[in-house]
């Protein structure tokens, strides 16, 4: 079976990407409290998806014979937003912890 360098690269990126996505989700699933759980998705999943996006980019460029960069936009977007998501979620968690401590809660 012939394996082109591009094919190899794509496969590698796919494996790395999905692996990191899984790692992020494992972190989310198994770490002990919210603040630690926050780390996995923020970094690993973002990177994982980023890798898959690049894989797609390479794959599309190779198969269509035309440079395809549009997938970069998704990565760009994810990298810009992930810290903010983590930020507001952490704030929300702290606020609701404070509320719980004060004996008030709400849905």
């Amino acid at each position: 079976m012939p394996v082109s360098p591009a094919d190899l690269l794509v496969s590698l990126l796919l494996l790395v990407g999905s692996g990191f996505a899984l790692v992020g989700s494992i972190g989310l699933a198994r770490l002990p409290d919210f603040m630690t759980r926050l780390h996995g998705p923020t970094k690993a999943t973002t990177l994982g998806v980023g890798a898959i996006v690049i894989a797609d980019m390479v794959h599309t460029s190779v198969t269509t014979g035309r440079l395809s960069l549009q997938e970069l936009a998704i990565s760009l977007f994810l990298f810009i937003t992930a810290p903010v998501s983590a930020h507001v979620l952490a704030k929300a968690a702290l606020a609701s912890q404070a509320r719980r401590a004060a004996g008030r809660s709400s849905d």
Partner: protein
Amino acid sequence: MKLRTGLLPQPVMTLLITFLWVVIVSRFTLGSLVMGALVGLAVPLLVRAFWVDRPVMRRPLLALGLLARVLGDIVVANIEVARLVLGPTARLRPTWLDLPLELESPYVATILCSIVSLTPGTVSVDIDMAGRRARIHALNAPDPEAAIATIKRRYEAPLKEIFRC
């Protein structure tokens, strides 16, 4: 300078949008470039009013260097996080870090905190511009002082340089 308040309020953004446009349409022609430039010129004008508190980038090349460093750190950081996540959780030492900020612009501080969130086992939780400090949660930081020092050295200093603030 006149351009900033006139037809070109955000030259960086204009460039970014033009680039984004060409990337998204994935059609590397003059037409696409012109179209992207048109959009890149029009959109910042449209949203000019939302543009508050935006410092000017003084050292674009340095910025590119920082970008490369951050991307590298992200990869490294993720391997580190993967090790922590997959390893025994009991060994984790989650800690709160108080990062004193030297940056004056909240915008630049935000960039710093974003970088912090994307790299080694840390997430920015709060920025207090009045108190000039950022609150950061570290997944595993046996030595908080060292972690803070690393952040300041690797990211804050270049940012200060880039934006001169």
